[in-house]
């Protein structure tokens, strides 16, 4: 896989703070992540893992501190260069699997043909099924296909292994490795292993 940029990328957070519903979730958070490296965010339920990812994705306001991405496309914001895989799958039940993926590929400015991406995640046979008929894990696989079909350097993954079976977990691990080998960045919130050795870990403190 080809590198995203000639210059190595670098994502930096300095004294980041997050406030949700009027409560401070965390503050003074620092990390630096170079191109080709992964950061696993761990911590107890409610520690703020999802909030941090949504903040990186520009979906939760930054209450304090700074986020910078160097080496990326200077014309685009961090969210515009990132893939966000949250708890929701952004699928329309009445569209088929292929139509759902095709739409996102076109809307996000897609690269690889949707068919290839579907084959990668093992959904090729279901391409013409309405998304309403998918099981939890199949929906999740379809979300993964988005990562493949549109090329973006920063991947923000919120419990990406949820609902995936062993085989799909292997596919995911493989995707991650190829993405990192190409110089991409991965930030993933997780409670268990996601099949990456030697990733940095950021443990968020305290809450319930």
């Amino acid at each position, binding site marked *: 896989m080809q590198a995203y940029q000639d210059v190595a990328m670098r994502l930096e957070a300095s004294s980041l703070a997050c406030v949700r519903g009027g409560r401070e979730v965390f503050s003074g958070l620092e990390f630096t992540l170079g191109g080709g490296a992964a950061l696993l965010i761990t911590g107890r339920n409610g520690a703020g893992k999802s909030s941090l990812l949504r903040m990186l994705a520009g979906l939760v306001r930054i209450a304090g501190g700074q986020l910078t991405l160097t080496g990326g496309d200077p014309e685009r914001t961090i969210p*515009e260069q990132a893939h966000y895989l949250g708890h929701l799958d952004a699928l329309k039940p009445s569209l088929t699997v292929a139509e759902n993926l095709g739409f996102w590929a076109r809307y996000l400015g897609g690269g690889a043909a949707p068919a290839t991406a579907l084959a990668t995640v093992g959904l090729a046979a279901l391409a013409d099924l309405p998304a309403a008929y998918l099981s939890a894990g199949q929906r999740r696989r379809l979300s993964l296909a988005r990562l493949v079909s549109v090329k973006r350097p920063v991947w923000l993954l919120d419990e990406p292994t949820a609902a995936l079976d062993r085989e799909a977990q292997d596919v995911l691990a493989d995707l991650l490795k190829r993405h990192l080998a190409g110089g991409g960045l991965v930030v993933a919130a997780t409670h268990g292993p996601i099949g990456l050795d030697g990733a940095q870990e950021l443990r968020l403190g305290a809450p319930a």
Partner: protein
Amino acid sequence: MSSLTALFMRDFRLAIRVGGGGGIGVLFFLIVVTLTPFAIGPDLALLARIGPAILWLGALLASLLTLDRLFTADYEDGSLDLVLMADTPLELAVAAKAAAHWLTTGLPLVIATPLLGLFMNLDAGASAAVALTLLAGTPALTFIGLIGAALSVALRRGGLLLAVLVLPLTVPVLIFGVAASNAAIIGPLPFGTPFTILCALTMISLVVGVFAAAAALRQGME
């Protein structure tokens, strides 16, 4: 541009696909208008007198009530997150969605109007006049409703709240829509004056609606 086409096409497809919202608006319009004689009684002269008003009220309700889940559905399934993260300007995305909505809901209302005019005892010319004013005016309703639809994401509430917030804003459109229809049907005022104002209102609400809706969506993200 291609990403906007994609969004427009997706929304269009969702609306006309089995189970989509397209068609429901027209049905609602039809039913509300046909209910009126049941409530008022079969007084033909009276019906003709208030016909344009009833048609406009029906179209107003049908437009606004179908807008309800325009953004909420995208919010609930996570699509909105991705739309906000894309590099396509949010204002344009909002406009593309509005266009798809009008095409699948507003336009059918206009097309159904001559038929309903018959029920309302309006003659052909009068029906055509009402349809013309609706053609000019329903986009305004869609764009004004857009604000409510976006606010209901920001508020995490849908349904009637939207209608309640937005209906007062549609009053000028309603007044000039009915005024133009009546001017065409019974005079004495010239049709042109209120009709021009109606078109102007549509233009204004296009701009205000799109920008206010985009602002509301951005603010709504926490």
